């Protein structure tokens, strides 16, 4: 039901063709589409009914994310469902922003990671004191179109979650262009005013869970993306002729296609199972391990499928004109964001060791 309505919504809006137009127009998203998605209940899928959501689980969120991935829609579904609402519904479910996010009236980006001197991730040092933020944050997805930022910063007594308006004093946003035309924000604050929403250990815990959710949803988005990339490729090898035959009649092409298909099915089953298990699991460490399992699998599959898809398309696969290129570029961004497969295998293994040692 959810799947069909999401698919119809995206297809009617123009499928991946719409995503291409938005990319060509500068890489933002479509506010009208966001409202339509909100009307379909997409952003509030995991928000409790008393807060205006559908009150469903992460598995249902995954169904939507798969559909987003199929048409590589740029709208911030994982950012909103996983991160901003993931934080707010855990820390301040009665905040007015909740409703606005669920209704698609606004988008908030979430800033929690920081960049170190070597350019890689570093320990957080961005400070919040006397109602003002000082420091910087990196890898802020959705920063370009967001009305504001949920920032996790270091307060006088531990971590705090604060809300800074886009365009606030002392806030500068550098947009780093990504392979798919979207932008990742680099934020710097110098005495930027921000309102405190929550503080203490609960912030850290909620952030960890929100990141788990977002990681799992990004995995589901990659599954949808991989499936569609495979379908496009399968159609292509059935119709493209060389040596007076469809290239899909050659065994070497057939066997590669089968391997991609198998990879796709394994990823779909593995990721869906992991999200379903996350809904039944309350231990954050176990949920983190499942999220890592999902992302590791989804990235491995998406990388393999989109890259082989280019090869199976031959020279036209290397052009921007063909649809498949958009899938490769989106897969690059979704793979790197929130950790790639090697990163998540490491987390997964460490979590498994820790659980083993605890038993």
């Amino acid at each position, binding site marked *: 039901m959810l799947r069909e309505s999401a698919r119809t919504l995206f297809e009617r809006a123009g499928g991946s063709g719409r995503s291409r137009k938005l990319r060509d127009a500068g890489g933002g998203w479509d506010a009208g589409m966001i409202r339509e998605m909100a009307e379909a209940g997409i952003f509030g899928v995991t928000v409790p009914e008393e807060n205006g959501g559908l009150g469903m689980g992460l598995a249902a969120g995954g169904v939507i994310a798969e559909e987003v991935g199929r048409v590589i829609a740029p709208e911030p579904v994982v950012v909103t469902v996983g991160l901003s609402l993931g934080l707010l519904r855990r820390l301040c479910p009665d905040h007015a922003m909740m409703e606005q996010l669920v209704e698609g009236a606004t988008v908030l980006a979430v800033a929690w990671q920081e960049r170190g001197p070597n350019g890689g991730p570093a320990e957080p040092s961005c400070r919040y004191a006397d109602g003002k933020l000082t420091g910087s944050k990196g890898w802020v997805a959705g920063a370009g179109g967001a009305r504001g930022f949920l920032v996790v910063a270091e307060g006088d007594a531990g971590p705090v979650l604060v809300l800074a308006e886009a365009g606030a004093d002392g806030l500068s946003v550098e947009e780093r262009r990504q392979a798919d035309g979207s932008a990742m924000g680099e934020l710097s604050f110098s005495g930027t005013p921000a309102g405190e929403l929550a503080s203490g250990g609960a912030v850290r815990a909620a952030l960890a869970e929100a990141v788990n959710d977002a990681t799992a949803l990004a995995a589901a988005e990659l599954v949808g993306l991989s499936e569609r990339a495979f379908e496009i490729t399968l159609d292509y090898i*059935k119709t493209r002729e060389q040596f007076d035959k469809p290239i899909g*009649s050659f065994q070497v092409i057939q*066997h590669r*296609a089968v391997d991609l*298909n*198998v990879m796709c099915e394994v990823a779909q*089953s*593995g990721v869906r199972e992991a999200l379903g298990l996350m809904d039944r699991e309350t231990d954050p460490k176990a949920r983190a391990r499942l999220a890592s399992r999902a992302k590791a699998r989804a990235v491995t599959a998406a990388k393999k499928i989109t890259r082989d898809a280019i090869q199976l398309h031959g020279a036209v696969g290397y052009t921007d004109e063909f649809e498949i290129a958009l899938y490769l570029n989106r897969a690059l961004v979704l793979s790197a964001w929130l950790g790639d497969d090697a990163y998540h295998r490491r987390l997964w*293994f460490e979590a498994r060791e820790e659980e083993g040692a605890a038993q």
Partner: protein
Amino acid sequence: MTDWNAMSDADFRKEVRGFFEAEYPEELRNLPHRPKFAEIEHWHRKLHAKGWVAPAWPAEYGGMGLNAAKLLIFYEEQQRWGVNRGRDMGVQMVGPLVIKFGTQEQKDYWLPRILSCEDIWCQGYSEPGAGSDLANLRTRAETDGDDFVINGQKIWTTMAHDATHIFMLVRTDQATPKKQQGISFLLAPMDQPGVEVRTITTLSGETEFCEVFFDDARTPRANLVGELNKGWTMAKALLSFERIFIGAPNLAQNALGQLESFARGRGAFEDPVFRDRFAQAALDVEDHAALYSRFADQLKRGETLGADVSMLKIWVTECFQRITELMIEAAGPDGGTVGPLQVGNVNVDVLASFYKARPTTIYGGSNEIQRNILSKAVLGLPG
């Protein structure tokens, strides 16, 4: 007669597990080789007395009458406890064949003898010129009075040197337009002058496989199962359950467990490269199990499996091989050593696992054949 299917899955699992744990002889757990019947006869007697020799057969023929869901549980528990399948060709192949296509006389005669292991069966399908291209088989059977006279050769016949009977595909009509036509199913006794068995030594030094030569061997015409020249269709019908069974996660899961205890003992996890490759293999096994459940659920709902079930076999056998290759890597300079390697208080036979994994991508339809099937029947690719 117990109606096992009426039990809850959990109760049934408990019942099966309880019996295996209490009754299965410890010395036979996780046998690294295929046993001859004499080696496992005492276990077979227990199983026979319990009425559990043929879990899939209908109860009226002496089976347990399990539905697909219960059958999967039975096999899962069997593999979990390392219970040897025994000499089960009769139960797995001949029984279903006779039940489905045999006459009442054939059922009355053969089925009880399969259950009691009075007859021990081997499978005569492959020939030197008919492996992946099985329909190319040439062993022929011609009528002579009340008998068929059989001439030709079978190969890769598992445990033929410890079998009393062979069920075989033979050519009974030489002049058909398609080679899939003109093939029939025959049952034949092994103990006769026209049958000669030679064992084949595998690269691991085992002698599980045989060649079987037929030189004017005879079998009564009454031992034709089903219609003459319709054997190919029947053989295909018999494969339906085997296709998910051959893609079950257990072999890879067991190997992963062995790899983990061995690698831990050897300190291989200190190497971050090894850790990553282990994590990859472990996740490959977990996500395969998720896909397997999807197909198993289809069976449980009473649906027929499509050709896409072949993907389970491709994934799990190749994964099984990678795991055993990692074991050899973890063994370092002992990677070529025959026999169990002791690590702490566990023994792991690294080479035995490696060898065991090799033929899995060849038997039951090689993985290349499986890919051909998927590309045509599932992806709809031409040619």
